[in-house]
């Protein structure tokens, strides 16, 4: 029997249709096999796809949000992946790109603001933590970032100011010390003279 899972947020709605996987003994209103899904945005075209596309969406959007909490905005989703998300080049906001597997179909781009992105993250969280979805999603657990990733949130120019400034000061002091005249050697003290013997 087909089961439909629905999740709603203010700007988007997700509907997942599926069946229980009877081969592993699933029964009742659970989803073990996703047959179709639809993500509807208000005022934008609806997104549809197979299970792999939904998984790809989760695999890029959730780590992206995890990094944003730490203040690191970096793109997720390399070329072979069907979904890519990156900070918008033209100011605040995010660009979600969906690449079609059909040849000669240009990728669909959606511009999202922070509120729409957090709505999407909440939807995906609701889906992945829904006990009715009995499917291994293979999503990594959120982890603390590496020190190098944390450093990325500070602009490179700002990061380089202190070491470059320090190196310049050292070079300047070293240069000035070369200009400082070397002290001349002190004249040697006059030879000690023996006092003349007194006349008798």
């Amino acid at each position, binding site marked *: 029997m087909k089961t439909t899972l629905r999740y709603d947020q203010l700007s988007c709605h997700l509907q997942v249709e599926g069946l229980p996987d009877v081969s592993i003994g699933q029964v009742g209103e659970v989803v073990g096999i996703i047959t179709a899904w639809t993500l509807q945005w208000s005022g934008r075209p609806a997104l549809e796809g197979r299970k792999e596309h939904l998984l790809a969406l989760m695999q890029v959007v959730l780590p992206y949000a995890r990094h944003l909490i730490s203040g690191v905005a970096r793109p997720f989703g390399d070329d072979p992946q069907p979904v890519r998300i990156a900070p918008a080049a033209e100011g605040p906001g995010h660009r979600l790109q969906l690449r079609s597997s059909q040849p000669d179909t240009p990728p669909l781009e959606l511009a999202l*603001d922070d509120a729409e992105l*957090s709505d999407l993250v909440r939807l995906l*969280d609701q889906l992945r933590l829904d006990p009715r979805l009995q499917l291994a999603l293979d999503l990594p657990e959120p982890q*603390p970032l590496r020190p190098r990733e944390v450093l990325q949130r500070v602009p490179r120019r700002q990061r380089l100011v202190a070491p470059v400034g320090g190196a310049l000061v050292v070079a300047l002091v070293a240069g000035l010390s070369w200009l400082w005249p070397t002290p001349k050697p002190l004249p040697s003290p006059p030879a000690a003279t023996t006092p003349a013997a007194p006349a008798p």
Partner: protein
Amino acid sequence: MPVSSAASAPARLTRRGLERLDLLLLCVEALDLNGGEAMVWMSEQMGFTGLFPNRVELWKRRCYNPLRRTTRRGALDPAETDALIRILCALADRLYPMLRALLATAEPEEIRLQRWALFQSRLSELARERMNPRRVGVQTLLDPERGAPLRRQLVQALAFGSGTGGFERLRASLCDPAV
């Protein structure tokens, strides 16, 4: 992807993590005039009475923030840290419509700016009252210009930390190494 040891194990936060956790709780108080009471109520609702039997105990845990006027030395117990993060996530979930309204760009610019100005004035008032004004972090937070990205990041963290899956995300973020 980031790597670390077990993410689900209770985490011992660094001083920077405690600082951020308390600032996020301060943001909740700035968004909700009754936020302090809501924190105590939520702690009771979530069954953390054993860890925080009263508001003073809850307050003492928040005083591990090094930016506080009266700060406490040492580190919080991981169970207490997790409880505070859970309370924070639950409060953020309750306040999600307000967080969303602050982050949305669909509304007229004037209304958005008014919302941010109100949030900033409440947050500054609370920060002046409780934080050490000689600390650079507090001065940045209080500065209308320089503090804007920090305030936005705090609201963004609350929005992404709300909801069913927000706890793990927020906890992992608070465990980030200090560099």
